């Protein structure tokens, strides 16, 4: 009743009854594109407010209070401001790459965002190699950051870009491995298939190895979004602003937005893979039928956003608690701790699936 599927099919029927098929498709594509962009922007705005409020509360402050009631309009003020700012053209740099970098970051972030399954019937992209797609397309951002740092012709951005390259490439590994662990468990690479497999119990509660995979995924995902304690590419205290020093106005604003939405995307993928996506919380027992019924009443998109924002809150909590790692500690953490554990975890998961489950079944 509160699902968006009804509205979508109503629009589809209304369009197909009045237009030829090609026009229907065209209009629908445009609508979907605009819808996704709007959702993207909306989530960015919500996250900006959330981050600023939550960060303030962790720091015994109040955060934005004066723009609108309780500071609720703060992100809009920021948005207006940043749109009005001048974009400074640099003299001695590669202008083509300078702006391409920006779009690469945004495209990478937007395409990954598109793979999220917000509710039962609000799905943008659903390949049969969805996990693979997510892993591949989210790495596009690295290229953008590297180019941004390099094309700015500044020593700080250069160091920031190099750090970003080293960091993102390494952490891609363990986040990929932990996702693969789940692929072994779910037996499919299709994201909708993975979610479907969790309709009874979420993966998180199916095996103990999922817990390890999830922790590793969250750490690695956190690192991939360049947020503290892994914010080395933009380490404020040493590199002033890292790879985006030379970007101003909306060009910087897009980096800013991209970073926030990436945080949400990582949380969203974590939700889909470990926490059952839009699946409601069910207790797999006879006596809990009533409870399950109540859980089913809650619309699926609410489930998804609740879980994803829960993970975002966790990520904020971590970000505002810890000091920044040093580059060698960062790589040590990845290559000597997360990688071996996730490899071992994958092996154990494979054994669980191939040996233990058939044995007890």
């Amino acid at each position, binding site marked *: 009743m509160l699902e968006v599927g009804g509205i979508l099919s109503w629009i589809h029927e209304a369009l197909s009854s009045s237009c030829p098929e090609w026009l229907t498709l065209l209009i629908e594509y445009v609508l979907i594109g605009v819808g996704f962009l709007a959702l993207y922007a909306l989530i960015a705005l919500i996250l900006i407010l959330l981050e600023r409020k939550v960060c303030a*509360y*962790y*720091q*015994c*402050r*109040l955060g934005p*209070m004066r723009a609108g009631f309780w500071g609720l309009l703060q992100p809009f003020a920021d948005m207006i401001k940043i749109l009005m700012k001048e974009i400074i053209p640099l003299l001695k740099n590669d202008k083509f790459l300078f702006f391409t970098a920006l779009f690469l970051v945004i495209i990478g972030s937007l395409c990954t965002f598109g793979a999220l399954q917000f509710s039962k019937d609000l799905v943008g992209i659903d390949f049969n190699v969805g996990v693979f797609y997510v892993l591949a397309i989210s790495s596009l951002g690295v290229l953008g950051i590297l180019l941004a740092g390099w094309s700015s012709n500044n020593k700080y951005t250069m160091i920031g870009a190099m750090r970003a390259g080293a960091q993102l490439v390494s952490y891609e590994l363990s986040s990929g491995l932990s996702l693969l662990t789940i692929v072994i468990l779910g037996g499919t690479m299709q994201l909708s298939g993975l979610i479907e497999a969790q309709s009874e119990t979420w993966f998180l509660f199916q095996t103990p190895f999922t817990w390890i995979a999830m922790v590793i995924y969250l750490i690695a995902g956190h690192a991939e979004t360049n947020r503290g304690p892994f914010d080395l590419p933009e380490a404020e205290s040493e590199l002033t602003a890292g790879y985006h020093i030379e970007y101003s106005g909306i060009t910087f604003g897009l980096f800013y937005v991209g970073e926030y939405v990436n945080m949400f995307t990582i949380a969203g993928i974590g939700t889909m893979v470990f926490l059952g996506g839009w699946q409601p919380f069910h207790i797999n027992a006879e006596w809990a039928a009533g409870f399950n019924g109540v859980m089913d009443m809650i619309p699926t998109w609410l489930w998804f956003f609740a879980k994803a924002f829960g993970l975002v809150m966790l990520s904020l*909590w*971590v970000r*505002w*608690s*810890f000091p920044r790692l040093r580059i060698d500690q960062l790589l040590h953490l990845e290559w000597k*701790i997360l990688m071996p554990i996730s490899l071992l975890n994958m092996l154990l998961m494979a054994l669980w699936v191939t040996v233990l489950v058939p044995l007890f079944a």
Partner: protein
Amino acid sequence: MKKYIKDLFSGIYALLQGMYITNLNFWRPKVTEQYPEDRQTARQFERFRGELVFDMNDQNEHKCIACGLCARNCPNQSLEVITKSITTEDGKTKKVLDKFLYDLGSCTFCSVCTQSCAQKAIKWTNNFEHAVFNRSALVKQLNPEGSKAIERKPAVAAPKAAPAAGQNENQQ
């Protein structure tokens, strides 16, 4: 290997403890003072040095005898005492205060002036809201227009006070 695992878990434990502290502060009452909202009610420390003013009484009178000691003691010439000579009723010429200019923009709030003022004519107030758009608006005249120095009750007291200040001047 054992050390590796031990380190791993003690590390995770310490990290969780850190997160516990931030969580603790998340729920604590916030210490933030909301300045413009609590403008009327905010507590101020009476000794806080916000701005130099003349100690005026109800009759629009001040205590300044224009000796200029404060201006000379000011380490960076923020005060300027402009005097004029007037003729009193009994025919004597007397040096009185014309303008007492105070440059808030360069004042360092070191209170050398208030300490050196023998008449206790200047004092500090708590007002700190000074931000302006124009630098010249920071130079203020402390004696309001139409104000005058307090007449000393016994007629002889006033001339006495002046030499006392004069001595100070000489010493300086």
